[in-house]
């Protein structure tokens, strides 16, 4: 038994160690350009469709990127920068829908669906097992009947 599992235990340990090392973030806090990039990816380019200001080189996108850079350098928090952008450009400027308000629907519905699917799977398989269960336990009366018939 242990033999059979040994290789898998070694594998699990190796994998866990590798992933733990590999997922470690670099020491130190994010640099200005990393922070600007992170914010810019969530902000829509005002004049082009669907691209973020991190991806687009349209002048409007460059202007927004510059604004984000200035605010980050001034030490403002991510959320206050986003609030400022929403104030100037409207709520449509953020590519990541907010987790509050009506837009929360896009986050909540998939989670609810996933939970429902998981519960559904468990219920289906458990019911199958229960249904299969009684068939294997034979009541005394049944035994008596069978013996009678055989005898």
């Amino acid at each position, binding site marked *: 038994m242990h033999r059979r599992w040994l290789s898998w235990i070694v594998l699990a340990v190796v994998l866990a160690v*590798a992933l733990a090392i590999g*997922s470690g973030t670099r020491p130190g806090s994010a640099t200005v*350009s990393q922070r600007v990039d992170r914010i810019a990816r969530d902000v829509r380019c005002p004049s082009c469709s669907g691209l973020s200001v991190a991806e687009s080189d349209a*002048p409007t996108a460059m202007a927004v990127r510059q604004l984000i850079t200035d605010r980050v350098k001034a030490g403002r928090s991510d959320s206050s920068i986003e609030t400022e952008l929403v104030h100037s450009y409207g709520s449509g400027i953020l*590519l*990541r*829908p907010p987790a509050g308000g009506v837009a929360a629907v*896009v986050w909540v519905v998939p989670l609810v669906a996933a939970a429902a699917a998981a519960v559904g799977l468990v219920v289906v398989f458990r019911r*199958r097992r229960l249904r299969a269960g009684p068939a294997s336990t034979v009541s005394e009366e049944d035994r008596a009947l069978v013996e009678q018939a055989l005898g």
Partner: protein
Amino acid sequence: MNAAVGRDAVLLGFLAAVIGAVTLVVGLVRRRPGALRNGVVYAGLLLLAAVVAAAAMEHGLLTHDFSLTYVAQNNSRETPLLFTVTGMWSALEGSILLWALILSGYIAAMAWRFRRRAEDPVVGWATVTCFVVAAFFFGLMLGPANPFHTGPVPPDGLGPNPLLQDHPLVAFHPPLLYLGFVGFTIPFSFAVAALATGRLGEGWLVETRRWTLFAWGLLTVGIVLGAWWSYQVLGWGGFWAWDPVENASFLPWLCGTAYLHSVMTQERRGLLRVWNLSLLVATFSLTILGTFLTRSGVLESVHSFSQSTLGPIILGFFGLVVSVGIGLIAWRGDRLRSPGSIDAPVSREGAFLVNNLLFAGFALVVLLGTVFPLLSEAVRGQQVSVGRPYFDTMARPIGLALLFFMAVAPVLPWRKAGGELLRSRLQWPAWAGTLVVVGCVAAGIRGLAALLAFGLGAFAGTSALRQLVLSTGSARRRGMPLWTGLVGRANGGMIVHLGVVLIAVALSASLSFGHRGQVRLAPGQQTRFAGHTLTYLGTRGVLHPNRRELEAAVRVDGGAVYRPAVSQFGSAAEGIGTPSVASGLTSDVYLTLDTPPEGATVGGGPGPSIVNGQPGTAPAGPTAGPGPAGAAVIGVVVQPMVAWLWIGGAVMALGTVIAALPERRRRAARGTRLEQPTSVGAETPVTGPEPAPVVVRAGGS
């Protein structure tokens, strides 16, 4: 002349579809086999009408018949031949015509294939369903989307949208995508027919398997080519923007993929019948919804080349399809009860069930993200954007889970799997995955999402390879040649899996480890960017018949010279950036001419402004203060492994073909971390001679 012929042909097609449908329904209801045999005649008429209409349109385009409004708007005397021909699908009305042509081709092929069984009510009802769909699309061309509308004759036409005459892929991507979209009409029709007749055995599934596979394969190729086109043309260095129109093509693909998997459960064990029918209805109705999203201009997107009043009509048809589908399934609910059940969660059918839930969940997320902004604005007047951050966040865990099950499912037996069997079959794939993760970490790659993608990719890839090796090996032992042992459904499926793994790994690598920036270089100057040496050689103007082009010459890594350009088409005010890509197996260097040198002109006119390939973007001015004389700003995107996306797509196509070929025997059996664009000039040129004057040669190449 073109207009008259075209209009008459469209009318003929409409009448053939309507009369065909009525005749067949009468024949079916009154049980007249003679009437049913006429189906193939009406299908032939339909195809004839569509071919004549399409020929009239192409003739109009080729002869620059500007009396046709469509030709005047999508063609000009200077448009090159290739883009004159592709003009047919450059805008709404022509696209509907292409749709009708392809649909008629499918219907005629189906009617011909089943001509000897035309009296079978299942074939009859399937043909009726096809005719109704055809009547809808021909009807659109009679009314709101008339491609043969005539108007005042201008001296010259406007020409196609500049983005649609910039790359030859426009000749392949839309037709292939449509072949995929429209192809799902056939399995849908058979599903409706099976429900209508109540003959819900497995026969119709087997009949339509190759049709579904054919449509799915072409849709896959169409989507991959679309991504390639977007990469080669749009100029932002990406290939998938989660644009509503891209999503519209992805949604039927997701449902179709789920169906191709779960249908095996039905063929093998008779399970999941309601689910399979629902998936077919969903796939087909999502192609209609895709048409609505693409063609009504309802969603703002880079693809909204066309806008029309068509929206409510298509939406109505979508509603009809959905309600007929759901109604029929509900009506036949009692006959759809499965004879058996899934015995154990750890089994092939259990894995297919989980696979299907994941695909359905993926489709739900994409659908929700695509239509929510629309609903929010319509209902509450509130503007919400749902973009890449949302889709990436949601798609990543689903994609990783799919990779995991892609590794496990193929080794599972039907009904029930024991632990011992799983351990021995998955041992090598699991170690391959682990070693890849260890290797990547040792090579200095960091980031949990990317490492998981690489590791699970290796897990799934090795699992697929294992199946391939085992099955070709056993075929060989029985004396079959390698090729004969390779063709068939299961092996084809495993090859498709290998293609998916390549795409997943390439997606994850390119999105996680890309570098993006701009460099300002004077002619002769050289710089290093993300491990590559770029030498700017100068800029020159080139005159083409349909456009004026300003192209920069950039030598990459001391080798070949690449020429990103800005083109101005006809009288269009905006210039269109044409990127140039130094593509390699390890990484791509993607170059755009962001700001031409000051004073550089094309053909003596004013220098074009750049919009980076994004329609609706305001013309760009200089992006920074005046630099050294003759300096150009070159946009650079370096991303690893992009080429493997296209290779993966080709492998998927190959696998589909192998899966569709007849088998000799029946066998038992992506994180984003792009560096912030450095501000102009931040990448300082390291070496290079004194800036030399820009080479601007006007006219001639």
